[in-house]
């Protein structure tokens, strides 16, 4: 080690206990959190498909569960996680293509992603409940 004085314990970035919260770090963490939630949420999709394959009675009980209060809460959470991960995932693909790295553009796209995900969730459920 270079002789630059006694060892100092520097924080490892991003250390969330001292890191100042900002919209981009929140969205980055949310991307992972919704990714994990959606991976667990595939259980709902598998349950629905397997119930349908098992026959009319199992399908009806699955539809009943999804239509119940708990089912609808799970579905709203799943829908928001999906729309968020989808919108923010598109933002990631745009970054991968080399665009959208300026700070003001990133803040703007963050707000667009949050708005779009929430808007799409509300719209999906309004249309869904009308169709029901």
């Amino acid at each position, binding site marked *: 080690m270079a002789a630059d004085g006694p060892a100092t314990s520097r924080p490892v970035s991003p250390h969330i206990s001292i890191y100042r919260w900002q919209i981009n770090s929140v969205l980055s963490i949310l991307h*992972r959190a919704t*990714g*994990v939630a*959606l*991976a667990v949420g*595939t*259980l709902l*999709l*598998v349950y629905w*498909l*397997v119930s*349908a*394959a098992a026959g*009319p009675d199992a*399908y*009806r009980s699955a*539809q009943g569960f999804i*239509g119940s209060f708990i089912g609808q809460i799970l579905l709203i959470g799943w*829908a928001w996680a*999906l729309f968020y991960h*989808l919108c923010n*995932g*598109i933002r*990631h*693909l745009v970054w*991968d293509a080399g665009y959208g790295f300026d700070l003001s553009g990133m803040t703007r796209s963050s707000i667009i992603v949050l708005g779009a995900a929430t808007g799409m969730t509300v719209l*999906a459920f309004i*249309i*869904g*409940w009308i*169709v*029901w």
Partner: protein
Amino acid sequence: MSIRTPLAVARNHGAAKDGVHHWWMQRLTALALVPLALWFVISIISMAGASYERFTGWVSNPLVAALLIALLVATFYHAAIGLQVIYEDYISNHLRRRIVDVVTKFILTLLGLVSIIAVIGLAVGV
């Protein structure tokens, strides 16, 4: 001219030429999932509260069944390699990380296979 010795090449040292495979597959499945997820959400909204007959009639359309299977393959693959990256970031113990990753991949593969077989069963009316 390569400065690598024939023995190093034989032992498979050096670049394996598949360093970006994981990264690329994550993007490829993401790109596929954009239209597939939108199609799926719109479909299930229009099927909200649908009868068993209407639902099975929908899945028995070959295009619908194919799109559902494509969605399931892309979803479970994307989930498996996405979770792997999270484990690599947050589980520092190598053995524990590997065990969690392998168990995750086994579970997701099984869930994927079960749901794909359910779709095939519905599609062919078994």
